[in-house]
């Protein structure tokens, strides 16, 4: 019987893909919401930083922390080593703060949130109202209720508009709220951990984020607690010429477990929008964090106009023994992607995993990968990267695996596969490997292949149209990574794979 259920679910997932391919336009989330916005003036200076801090009712120490970052940022230059081509970004020609006017007085519950905002999220398919989710759970008698519940924190432009399931999480001792709320309500935790994985001075974009981040999510899972549901954040950029700088901080205390999902969309605009986020994971002894991302920011149109510039710093610190982290990402959106979710394997026997699907179509450019920094003894890491390039896109895997002298008996396995669709795209693999002890082992495997005409013909001769056939073959290529995603996300990811490759053949 178990086997049947297993098969049923997988089957359902695949059917979803096919349906989605047929039902959807090329970028489904490209509409915008007309909401009165409150902007800070364009440009960036100390006053703007202070204003952001003030708008969030932050304590003095936070303001100082931001200013310190801002001063540092002014001395830094934008990194240019990635295989990315884009016009110079004028950082003074951006809005650094935008929020819906109705959010000026923070709503106390979801009922007070502007219905237009809620409608936006509903359109995105994100159930913000707890009742809706609960109704869904009650309807599904046989389904394990635990697995179905997802607590959501939704971030609209610069501010968090609501977090669901707070009470239930609080019962378990889990704190899940917006970061601005955490700064006010849990300053001791924020002070202790903010910037402890990605320091203010880390890199140009992370430092910028440290100065101007407006909101984001905060999670604390206390010792020994297995978070009773999946936690999820949905980011949406709506306002034009607005940068989005969210900051996520997750702390998994000793022996705890949490699975966190992150999704992103943005309206279709012909100007480029800037997104520079920072995600910090702190994982203590015997704790485990799974962090999954489906990134579907607007990729620009078929001529390469518009799209999000996505510069993200994500890092997990397995700070103590046997800490475990798993990054899974499905990157289908953005005009430019610059992102390397990394693992610092500091604790002995800690483990890091990175599973990635990066799809670049039309004029998209992706430079993405990971860093596995082995510091502790007997540490393990695994990298599975699937890059798909179509149209005129360029897709680069850039990875660093380093075994420090003290990281004895450690291991890494890296598998890096690239798939090309058409003859005008590019796939590049840039692995850096440093081994500074004699007992560790590093393996690297890489392949590059083209979508095979025989495979497509075989599928089509069985009745699938060309796009279904491509989606099926590409989903097969990505299988190992899709399987690493939580079920609900796997479905969404499969559909996205299909959608983002529309029009890539023929």
């Amino acid at each position, binding site marked *: 019987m178990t086997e049947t259920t297993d098969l049923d679910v997988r089957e359902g997932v695949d059917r979803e893909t096919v349906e989605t391919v047929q039902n959807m336009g090329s970028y489904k989330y490209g509409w915008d919401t007309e909401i009165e916005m409150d902007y800070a003036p364009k440009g960036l200076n100390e006053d703007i930083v202070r204003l952001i801090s003030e708008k969030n009712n932050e304590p003095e120490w936070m303001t100082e922390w931001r200013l310190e970052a801002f001063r540092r940022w002014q001395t830094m230059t934008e990194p240019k080593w990635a295989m990315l081509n884009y016009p110079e970004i004028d950082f003074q020609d951006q809005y650094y703060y935008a929020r819906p006017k109705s959010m000026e007085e923070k709503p106390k519950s979801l009922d007070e949130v502007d219905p237009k905002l809620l409608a936006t999220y509903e359109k995105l398919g994100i159930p913000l109202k707890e009742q809706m989710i609960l109704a869904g759970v009650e309807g599904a008698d046989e389904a394990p209720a635990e697995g179905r519940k997802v607590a959501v924190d939704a971030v609209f432009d610069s501010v968090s508009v609501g977090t669901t399931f707070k009470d239930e999480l609080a019962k378990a001792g889990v704190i899940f709220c917006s970061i601005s709320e955490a700064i006010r309500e849990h300053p001791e935790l924020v002070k202790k951990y903010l910037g402890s994985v990605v320091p203010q001075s880390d890199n140009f974009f992370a430092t910028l984020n440290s100065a101007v981040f407006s909101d984001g999510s905060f999670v604390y899972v206390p010792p020994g607690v297995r978070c009773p549901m999946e936690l999820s954040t949905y980011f949406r950029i709506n306002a034009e010429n607005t940068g989005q700088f969210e900051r996520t901080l997750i702390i998994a205390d000793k022996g705890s477990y949490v699975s966190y999902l992150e999704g992103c969309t943005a309206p279709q605009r012909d100007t480029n929008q800037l997104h520079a986020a920072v995600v910090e994971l702190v994982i203590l002894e015997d704790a485990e964090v799974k962090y999954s991302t489906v990134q579907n920011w607007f990729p620009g149109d078929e001529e390469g106009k518009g799209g999000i510039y996505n510069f993200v710093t994500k890092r997990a610190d397995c700070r103590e023994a046997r800490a475990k982290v798993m990054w899974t990402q499905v990157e289908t959106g953005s005009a430019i992607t610059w992102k390397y979710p990394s693992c610092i394997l500091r604790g002995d026997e800690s483990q890091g995993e990175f599973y990635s699907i990066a799809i670049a179509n039309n004029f998209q450019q992706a430079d993405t990968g990971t860093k596995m920094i082995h510091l502790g003894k007997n540490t393990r890491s695994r990298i599975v990267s699937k890059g798909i390039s179509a149209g005129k896109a360029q897709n680069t895997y850039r990875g660093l695996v380093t075994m420090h002298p003290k990281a004895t008996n450690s291991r890494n396995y890296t598998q890096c596969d690239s798939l090309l669709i058409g003859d005008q795209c590019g796939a590049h693999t840039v692995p850096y490997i440093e081994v500074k002890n004699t007992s560790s082992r590093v393996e690297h495997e890489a392949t590059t292949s083209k979508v095979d005409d025989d495979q497509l013909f075989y599928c*089509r001769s069985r009745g699938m149209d060309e796009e279904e056939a491509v989606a099926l073959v590409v989903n097969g290529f990505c299988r190992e990574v899709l399987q690493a995603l939580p079920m609900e996300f796997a479905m969404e990811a499969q559909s996205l794979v299909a959608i983002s490759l529309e029009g890539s053949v023929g």
Partner: protein
Amino acid sequence: MLKIDNLHVKLEEEDKQILKGLSLEVPAGQVHAIMGPNGSGKSTLSYVLSGRDGYEVTDGDATLDGESLLEMEPEERAAAGLFLAFQYPVEIPGVGNMTFLRTAVNAQRKARGQDELSSGEFLKIVRAKAKDLQIDAEMLKRPVNVGFSGGEKKRNEILQMAMLEPRMCIMDETDSGLDVDAMRLVSEGVNALRDAGRSFLVITHYQRLLNHIKPDVVHIMSNGRIVKSGGPELALEVEENGYGDLLAEAG
């Protein structure tokens, strides 16, 4: 059912004529076999009928129930009821055999305006049909044709045929690489599908398969044409004497 009329086909990339005026008619409910020496154009015929790229039809036509196949996309031909059992079934890594089958079945149902099968219905049907072909649950889960033995690949083709229920089945050397037991299983699978509304075009080198799947008509193909047609006895003649005499006779 299937009518091929004076079909001329050349390779797209080079100036090489493969089919040179081939004509053939398979009425509903009949099994026709095509035999012929290597290089006579048998596989090309099966590919052209199912719509593979790389061939150019320079003259003639092929119709299924009066509708020209040549203008249709491969998936439209499949939805119209044409099926090709491949000589070399293609591997698709990472795609479960079951997923593949279900996507194909539902794509065709959708194209014909039928409701898709629910996963429960689908499972029930596929399990029953797989059992007849001695395909176990494990093989249904494995990626399409990846690591399958020759016999498993061919049985899998027949399973697809059984699931898709085409009206016109073309089998391209399905017997190649099969041992005696696999040959029997495949033939039983095919025979179970024979009915008044379904036709078969069986391409083979050997009479052996035709002992199991009894043809109504046997065609001998050479140099891009049918040079002789007759009853099952024609296959026996080839088996005994080779193609030499027949071809000389056809001149």
